[in-house]
């Protein structure tokens, strides 16, 4: 049985257990958000995806990412109140991550250009907004190489026991999901440096480009049952090879 409800007076359908933000986006409603990806569990950290949900006579503000849809609810994705609180939360985040392009842009849309707050005092990873996408991605991938440390005003993203984790394979998922690009990761042709470790790359046997870190390859082959030579050639060389084969057949 699908769940039926309304977003901005438009009737929509969803599967039970789906998150409101995902459903809204699928139906073309735009709700801003910084800490949500469909592939990781929602935690409602950034508080930007606020919407108003009416259920019967009761109405309240809630984040949409971690709200499981219910039959008959009526959702508004925009109102002066919603905009006011989104703006204030963005002002808080901009003060935390002043050089993040993504946050500056979004804040500007809400009329915030210069935060009224100074630089944040405890800030070991500059521009980090503690959305935990990195930790959630790492955990979801089964590596458990990153974690949150501490709480409240001393909360930060860090490594277990403050030392490089054996379980880090250098996949770089943490850096790529980061909305403010604040996780330092440096790649050369042969090595990737991240979280205090250097990982050797597997290089493409055709073009020599880095494909994947060796540790990541070993982990992927072991856990996903892929053939041993799966990562010997990079994606683009594989595509070229495929199209050449295809061309040979057609012509």
């Amino acid at each position: 049985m699908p769940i039926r409800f309304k977003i901005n007076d438009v009737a929509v359908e969803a599967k039970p257990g789906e998150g409101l933000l995902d459903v809204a986006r699928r139906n073309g409603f735009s709700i801003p958000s910084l800490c949500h990806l469909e592939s990781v569990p929602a935690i409602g950290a950034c508080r930007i995806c606020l919407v108003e949900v009416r259920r019967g006579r009761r109405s309240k503000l809630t984040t949409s990412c971690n709200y499981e849809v219910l039959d008959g609810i009526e959702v508004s994705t925009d109102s002066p109140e919603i905009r006011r609180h989104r703006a204030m939360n963005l002002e808080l985040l901009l003060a935390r991550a002043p050089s993040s392009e993504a946050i500056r842009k979004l804040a500007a849309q809400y009329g915030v250009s210069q935060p009224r707050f100074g630089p944040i005092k405890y800030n070991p990873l500059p521009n980090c907004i503690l959305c935990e996408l990195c930790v959630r991605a790492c955990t979801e991938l089964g590596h458990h190489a990153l974690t949150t440390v501490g709480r409240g005003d001393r909360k930060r993203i860090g490594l277990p026991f403050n030392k490089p984790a054996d379980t880090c394979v250098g996949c770089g998922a943490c850096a790529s999901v980061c909305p403010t690009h604040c996780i330092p990761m440096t790649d050369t042709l042969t090595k990737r440096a991240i979280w205090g470790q250097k990982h050797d790359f597997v290089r493409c046997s055709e073009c020599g480009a880095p494909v994947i870190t060796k540790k990541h390859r070993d982990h992927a082959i072991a856990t996903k049952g892929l053939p041993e030579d799966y990562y010997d050639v990079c994606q683009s060389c594989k595509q070229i090879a495929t199209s050449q084969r295809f061309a040979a057949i057609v012509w």
Partner: protein
Amino acid sequence: MTAAKTIDPKRIDRVLARHPQGKPTALVNLLHDLQAEFRYLPELAMEKAASYLNVPNGQLFRVATFYESFHLKPRGKHIATVCTGTACHVRGAPKLTDHISREFEIPVGGTTKNMELTLETVNCVGACALGPLLILDGEYHGNMSPAKLDRTLKTIKRG
């Protein structure tokens, strides 16, 4: 500190054995017991606890740093805990922490270089009638003032 090197793994194992293996619900209790054994949580003990309970190191470290009860660094021979509950606050607890901080040159949570004294705070121990309250090595000292503090802490070596 060289304390980490002198940790006997057998002492850790004895504490672990008192808890059900592979059950994360025992985690906070287990950390309390490890801390009772060592007065802080040595890294080796945390690592062993993580594998004993079958939780990732990340989760264990997250828990150990989230809860105020746990200390990841060795603490001093004496522990001065100032109650910073509301009743103690309105009766002048901040003056006590300020005074100890200044006299022993340590922040709250810090330990003197000679490992004699650690200064800590606690949210409330339910002895509000006696506020502001200092607990020195488990012993309660009520109706404290900076002037009285000097007397209570006079046996502790500075440095």
